[in-house]
Structure formats: C-alpha cells, structure tokens
C-alpha cells in the first residue's frame, strides 16, 4: 500500500513539474511603491503567476531588492525576476506584491527580451489594495488562498521562436509533436491515477468485507 502511494506521489510530482520552454529570454522587473509614492522596503514579497500557455499556474516567488538586483538599485522598491524557463513569450502573467495585509497587482504579456526594467516605469505596482481577511488567516506574504482579482491580459505578443518547426513536419521531430506527446503523457498519468484510485477503493472494500466476515 505504501509503495502504491509512493508511486502515485512520484507520478503526481512528475505531472506537476512538467514545463515547456520556448528558449526566448523573458523576465519581469519593475518598481513597487506605496500609495504615497514612496518605495516599499527591500524584502517585500513578490509572486509572478503565469496565467496562460503551457506553463499556466506556474508561480515564481521573489522579493523586492532580491539577489538579482544590482546594489545600485537596492532600497528603491525595485525587483527583478531574471529569466525563468517557464516564462514564454506571448503568455499572460500577473505580478502580485503582497505584504500580508495590503497588495498591488500588475498583469502583462511576456515579451521577447523582458518586461520592464530600472530605466522604465512600465512595470509599476502600487500597493493600494487592502485585503479582506475576515475569514482568512493573515500570512506574512501573498496567499494563494486569497482571491485576488487579477485582470488577465489576452494580448498576443508576437512569438517567433521555433514556430517555424510547424512548417517542417516532414523532416524531423518537431515541437508540435513534442507538445502532443506531452499532453498524451499527461492523459496517461491521469489514467494511471484513476486506475490506482479505483484499485485502492477495491482494496479497501475487500479488507472491509474480510473484516466483517
């Protein structure tokens, strides 16, 4: 029984960590400010959520003034994610800056080369929303149980990388097939999960019937 659970855990983990990269550089960088315009303190928690595409629901956590921020930009409310292979050009994302009681949001579409930076105010988050925490436990940072109202952009940043592979199906293994394979594998895992659950249910039933006998 224990082995079965272990097997299931591995399968679920594999299924959850599967990610697809488009090989383009993408990052999100910008400023987080209080409602009075002053920069938030370094260490202010940030989460970047991927809202569409292959890596939908992926979350990257970082901090204002984090380790990727140059000393020059410390204590200015600046954050920088660096590149992450889950960030794909054309996919929608949101940034949540949340100190547990107040938060601010930003949403956008990943662009080739990155969104924002220290020489632009393109990504500017104002902490101007108060969390309704009557029934929620207050956490030190953002809280995924909390229902943020994030506007999801549906724009379409032009995507180039390896799209051409679709035109070349006759030659070699292509990303299209890879994606298909990936979804097939996902279905395969789900099927195994389902079958395993049924088996567990049968085992439990058998045990119960043995006991009652």
């Amino acid at each position, binding site marked *: 029984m224990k082995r079965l659970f272990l097997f299931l855990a591995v399968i679920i983990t594999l299924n959850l960590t599967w990610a697809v990269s488009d*090989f383009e550089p993408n990052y999100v960088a910008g400023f987080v400010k209080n409602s009075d315009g002053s920069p938030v303190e370094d260490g202010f928690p940030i989460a970047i959520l991927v809202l569409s595409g292959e890596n939908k629901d992926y979350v990257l956590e970082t901090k204002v003034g984090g380790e990727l921020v140059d*000393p020059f930009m410390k204590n200015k409310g600046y954050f920088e994610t*660096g590149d*992450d*292979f889950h960030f794909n050009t054309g996919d929608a994302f949101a940034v949540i800056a949340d100190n547990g009681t107040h938060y601010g949001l930003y949403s956008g579409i990943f662009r*080739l080369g990155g969104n924002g930076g220290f020489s632009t105010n393109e990504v500017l988050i104002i902490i101007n929303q108060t969390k309704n925490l009557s029934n929620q436990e207050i956490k030190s940072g953002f809280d995924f149980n909390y229902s943020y109202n994030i506007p999801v952009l549906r724009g379409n940043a*032009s995507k*180039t990388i*390896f799209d051409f592979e679709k035109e070349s199906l006759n*030659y070699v293994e292509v990303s299209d097939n890879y994606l298909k394979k990936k979804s097939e594998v996902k279905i395969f895992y789900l099927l195994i999960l389902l079958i395993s659950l049924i088996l567990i249910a049968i085992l439990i039933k058998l045990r119960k019937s043995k006991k009652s006998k």
Partner: protein
Amino acid sequence: MKKSILISSILAVLFIILLNFNFNHSGVLNYVSPKSMYPFVPQYLTTSVLIIAPPYFPNTTGKIIDEGGYTLGNFWLNWSLDPSDNITSYKIYMTDNEEVGFNFSNFNVSLPRYANNYTDITANQTSKRFYVVRAENEYGSDNNTAVWGKYDINFINTEENKGMNLISIPVQPLNSSIKEVIIQNESNYKISTLYRYNSLERKYDVLFYIPSLGGWTTANGQFVSFEPGYSYWVKIKDNITYPFGGDFCLRNVSIQLYNTSDNEGMNLVGWSSIKRTPIKEAIIQSGTNYNITEIYRYNASSLTYDIIHYIPEEDRWTNASGKFTHFEPGYGYWMKTRENMTWLYLANNLTWGS
C-alpha cells in the same frame, strides 16, 4: 679633407640604415628592429644574416580530420613549402592554453624541409589545442604568428531542453560551409538541426540534417555556412562534445544590430573569439552615448538566461548574483539595442607568447 669627411659620414649613415632593414622572401623591404634580431647570431654577422637568410613564412592551414562518425578531434596541419633551399626544417609549436600561449624557444615537433603537413593524433585528448608552424634555417626561425587549432564545444541534451544549445563558433574554419564543419553521416549523426536568427525579420533560418542524403536542407535558400558574429541554435540527439577547427588569427568582427518595431531591439549575436573578454572592453559606449542596454547568455543546463543590464548613470553593467562579466568563447548571446547600430569587436586579441 672636408669633402672626404662628408662622404665618409654619408656612407656611415647609409651603412647604419642598411643595417636596420631586411628583405623578406618576396623581395619587399621591411624594417627590422635590431632588438628583434636573432639573439644567437653574433652582431658582427648581422649584415650577412639580413641579406642571405630572409625568413620564409609557411602559409599554414588546418582542419579537423574526418575520421568517420564521432571519433573526431584530431587535427591536420598543412603548409606551403619554401621554393628556395634556405629552409632546413619546419618547427611546430603547440599550446593547450591560449592565455599562456606558445613557448617559441621549445618546439613540439620538428619536420624535415620537404614535409608540408602534420597530423596531431593526440588532439582529441584535449578540449582545445593551438598550433603555429615556423620555417627554420641555420640562423633561426621566422616569426610566423598564424595560429590554427581546435576548440571543443559541449552540447547538452536533456528531456527539458530538447537538445537545444545556443552556441557561437570561436574559430574561423578553413572552409566554413556547414557540411565541412559538421562532419557526420547517415549511420552516425548527432546534430539534427541548425537555426540562425534573422533579427530584421524576427524569424529563424533553419537547416535540417537529412540522414538519407548525408546533407543539409537548402530548400529555403537559407544559410550554407557558419559566419563570424552569429550565434546558432543547434539541436542534438545525444550529449556530445564537438570539435571546431580553424584559425585563431586577430581580426575585426562586425555585427549589424537592429531595432525595429517588430524585433524590440533583440539580436542574437556570436562571440567569434577565443579570448575571454570583459563586456566593458568589448562594447565601447558611455553613459551619455549608449545603445546596448541588455545582454543575455543562455545556460543549456538550467534552460535560463543570465541577464545583465547597462547602467548609464554609472557607465557599467549590473553585477549582482548570477550575472556574467565577460564574453566567453562558445556561448551565444542575445543583445538588446535601442537603435540600429554596428557592433565592432576585435577577436583573438592575444599575445600568444614570444
């Protein structure tokens, strides 16, 4: 008396001038610093050395040997023979470290005057090796500085990266056509696809290897050779180390960078040099006059880019955790520019020893 003093003075001056000039093998008069003359030649013989022993520069070339499949890495050197009888032997100098360079007081291989090629069968045991061939006569050797050799690039294939590696080739191959540089055949091929980015059109030119034909597709009329200044995405089937052979001579590399509404200033560029060079040395710009704002270096293991930003206020590049500070051979880079521009850099700016 005065006349004879004047004439002898003029003659003396002429003699001194003659001492400081030398004729090379093609008959062109070259200035030779007395300090660079062969140290083991007694000074009183200098005049005769300069006249009767003009150094011969063997015109060297070299390439990786096609030994079939992937037992690659050995290097073949070839040079032109001196048509005169002045040369006594050819000396080959080797080094595996471009920073240390060659020790020209100790040759590695000596070959007779009629030999015009050499195969290094131990080259595949090292990730990089460089060679200089010098002609020698009874008075010493020439000062040929044409460096040839090989440089290995490691390609990583994982389930996540799908075998995709971003590289630039730090050598200038003797023949830079794809078929000559990527040596593989139907029964043993590891590199399946090559991609070269077209910044202006924001698309990739693609070449696929067709095993049955033993060659690369040319259907789209796309690129047929490796060129300096470009990066290439290379798709591989297995983890491999691939040797690239060619020359490592000092040269200027010129790359056109574009900023259009479509490409957002992003250009894929190559570091076509063996020398690891500080970013600030390779990109000449200032806080009041700059175009390049970001550089991205791909890491095939982590599937992410290391990114550095230019800080005009401080005329420097960001230097935080995980940042890089140098252009390094073998890597491909994205570069973001604010305007169309030409980026010019000096490749292989190395001393190579003395």
